[in-house]
């Protein structure tokens, strides 16, 4: 984890939601392809896309780049900017869920691939449509699962 020496960056809150919509579409394709190697390859691409998002934030992903170059120029400026930490947490959750499917898939358990893609699809689609905040729902649960943090 990086140490925050200054205030964390602030981003357009619509960027992560557009990015989640793009990701949800890709994950739906993974579900449709089913437990096959092409599905595993596509899920691997999605999982790798979460890596810069989990490290720096969703603005660092290619989905964030698409939002900035194609979508944001067509929109009015946002009413306010958002702290990058909540959407970065959501990217980390996405990385863990899809990463589990990727590791299992390359280890030979292709059946796990659509399951991981389906779970990540629900989370991404909820983020895109109603702005589900994974950090709000899961952070305390995660703390509870780490006894040392109590």
């Amino acid at each position: 984890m990086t140490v925050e020496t200054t205030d964390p960056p602030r981003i357009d809150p619509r960027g992560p939601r557009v990015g989640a919509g793009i990701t949800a579409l890709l994950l739906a394709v993974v579900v449709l392809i089913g437990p096959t190697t092409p599905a595993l390859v596509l899920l691997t691409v999605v999982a790798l896309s979460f890596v810069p998002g989990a490290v720096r934030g969703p603005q660092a992903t290619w989905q964030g780049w698409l939002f900035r170059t194609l979508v944001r120029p067509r929109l009015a400026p946002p009413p306010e900017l958002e702290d990058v930490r909540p959407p970065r947490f959501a990217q980390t959750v996405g990385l863990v869920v899809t990463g589990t499917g990727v590791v299992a898939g390359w280890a030979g358990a292709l059946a796990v691939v659509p399951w991981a893609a389906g779970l990540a699809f629900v989370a991404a689609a909820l983020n895109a449509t109603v702005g589900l905040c994974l950090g709000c729902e899961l952070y305390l649960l995660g703390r509870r699962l780490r006894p040392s943090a109590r």
Partner: protein
Amino acid sequence: MTAQWTVLAALLVVTAVLALTWRSAQGRVRTTAPGAVDAAATGWTDELVAQGMTPGARATFLQLSAEVCSACRSTARTLGALAAEEPGVTHVEVDVDHRPDLVERARVHRTPTVLVLDAAGTEVARASGGMTPARARDALATVPSAPVAGRTA
């Protein structure tokens, strides 16, 4: 391929149900049944004072927040604005990482969770999720306007 389309359709239904459920639950005020008032639900005034926070003479919004919670920021602004315009109402915010003991005591599982405390420091209602100004007013309306009679010692 038909099976996969069925799976995707099921996922879409699950997502739609979750979306509607989650959105309608955001900031919904749940009153605390008098029978459910136990030791953990009372005596918050002493706790707040011990932390250097100021309980309201009429009501206190005790908000538990996390760094990774975007809805906590908007909820804090909404409750802060209401507290500023309503006499005797204060809003205090606690970070769950700094006070895991309060998370335990309040039995909080999600952020933001707002405990609505009456003048005696007893929890009368709570709400989880982002709060709109209307929901904040609903929360304040759960507090009896007169000082509570028969407050616990």
